[in-house]
């Protein structure tokens, strides 16, 4: 049997991934719960684990003229408190879990776990973020939303890992993240909405809505969003009901232990209304 791996460098990690199949763990705050077993026993993780927490070269924030790059092992708390990070992403992380978890958890883990309710995923998709994915043989870039294939499933090959997240700089003066959950801290979203919006001289120049927990994946439809570009704010406000109706068919939630389909759908549509009311 293959042993668990604890690489210190990215190269070591990629060599291990090339040779054997692993479950990657960064902070572990999600996977340790998913595979939790009885108290005082080991979690039941079906594969050997590759612990990448100690790969220091992936723990960084780097600002470039085109994008902000966040290394895969950078803890959420560090991302949240960095002045380089867009406000909407800071606000999103403030709504995720609580300090004890944010000190260990990573955004890359939030993506790889591919939960349709992942708050971080929702905002990164609205921000049109890219992922840098590496294996020993090659490096590639992919849109965050393209790496998700379904609930809890991602398209990473078994020898690949996320090494960084790139968030393109963009105008987004009116961006906001809305989360509806059972309590303020430590709640998994019943519904969430990340709205990345920019208004220039009363005209919409950037518009991305990404909804969490209302479908098998985070819901983001670029074609619907594109129809908003160029609209005057006054017209948007006048046509609020028509705009909500345009998004309505995209929202297809289910009943589960956290909420009901009926509630989620209504709240998601109400959140669009709130976004429009807040435009100025």
């Amino acid at each position, binding site marked *: 049997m293959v042993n668990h791996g604890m690489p210190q460098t990215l190269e070591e990690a990629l060599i291990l991934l090339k040779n054997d199949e692993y479950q990657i763990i960064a902070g572990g705050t999600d996977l*340790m719960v998913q595979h939790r077993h009885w108290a005082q026993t080991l979690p039941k993780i079906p594969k050997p684990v590759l612990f990448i927490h100690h790969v220091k070269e992936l723990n960084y924030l780097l600002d470039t003229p085109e994008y902000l790059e966040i290394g895969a092992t950078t803890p959420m708390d560090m991302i949240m408190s960095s002045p380089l990070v867009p406000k909407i992403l800071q606000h999103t992380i403030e709504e995720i879990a609580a300090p*004890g978890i944010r000190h260990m958890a990573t955004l890359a883990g939030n993506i790889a776990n591919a939960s349709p309710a992942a708050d971080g995923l929702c905002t990164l998709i609205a921000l049109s973020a890219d992922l840098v994915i590496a294996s020993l043989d090659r490096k590639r870039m992919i849109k965050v939303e393209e790496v998700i294939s379904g609930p809890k499933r991602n398209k990473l090959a078994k020898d690949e890992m996320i090494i960084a997240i790139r968030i393109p700089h963009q105008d987004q003066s009116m961006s906001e993240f809305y989360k509806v959950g059972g309590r303020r*801290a*430590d709640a998994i979203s019943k519904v969430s909405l990340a709205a990345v919006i920019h208004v220039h001289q009363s005209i919409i120049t950037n518009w991305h809505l990404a909804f969490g927990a209302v479908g098998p994946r985070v819901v983001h439809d670029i074609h619907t969003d594109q129809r908003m570009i160029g609209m005057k704010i006054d017209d948007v406000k006048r046509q609020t009901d028509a705009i909500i109706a345009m998004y309505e068919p995209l929202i297809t939630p289910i009943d589960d232990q956290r909420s009901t389909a009926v509630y989620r759908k209504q709240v998601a549509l109400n959140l669009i209304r709130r976004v429009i009311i807040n435009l100025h």
Partner: protein
Amino acid sequence: MNEIIFTLNGKTVSCPFEPTRRLLDVLRQDFNLIGVKEGCGEGECGACSILLDHNVVNSCILPLGNVHGKDIMTIEGFKTTKRFKVIEQAFIEMGAVQCGFCTPGMVMSTESLLHHNPHPTDQEIKIALSGNLCRCTGYNMIIDAVKKASIVGDGLW
């Protein structure tokens, strides 16, 4: 690698290489540090809070592998410090302890907060304690106690 080595309450310790083991179990079973409590076992209640490099973390969902080379402090180690005495006295005076099960975790979250932010606002205290559940006090007394500790202990953090 056949051992995991870290600093525990100021001393270097080593454990067999079982990196998926929960740090909570290692602390309670191998080191008899039973001030670290298991409440929910899934990172939602904060009873197992400890400090990792001076940041509060939930030891029930922390794999031992992630602790290698780090500095871990539990309530037992923190008890020997002046800062603890200030927090302890503030918790007593403000009535912030009833059954006591959440208290070690509350104290570790308080230390993590004051280490980074010695003069927190009420809102910052609430956020800092947002991962620690208390089913007795209703929280007001705990928030008052943290505030009191930050004033009485001015200069210690």
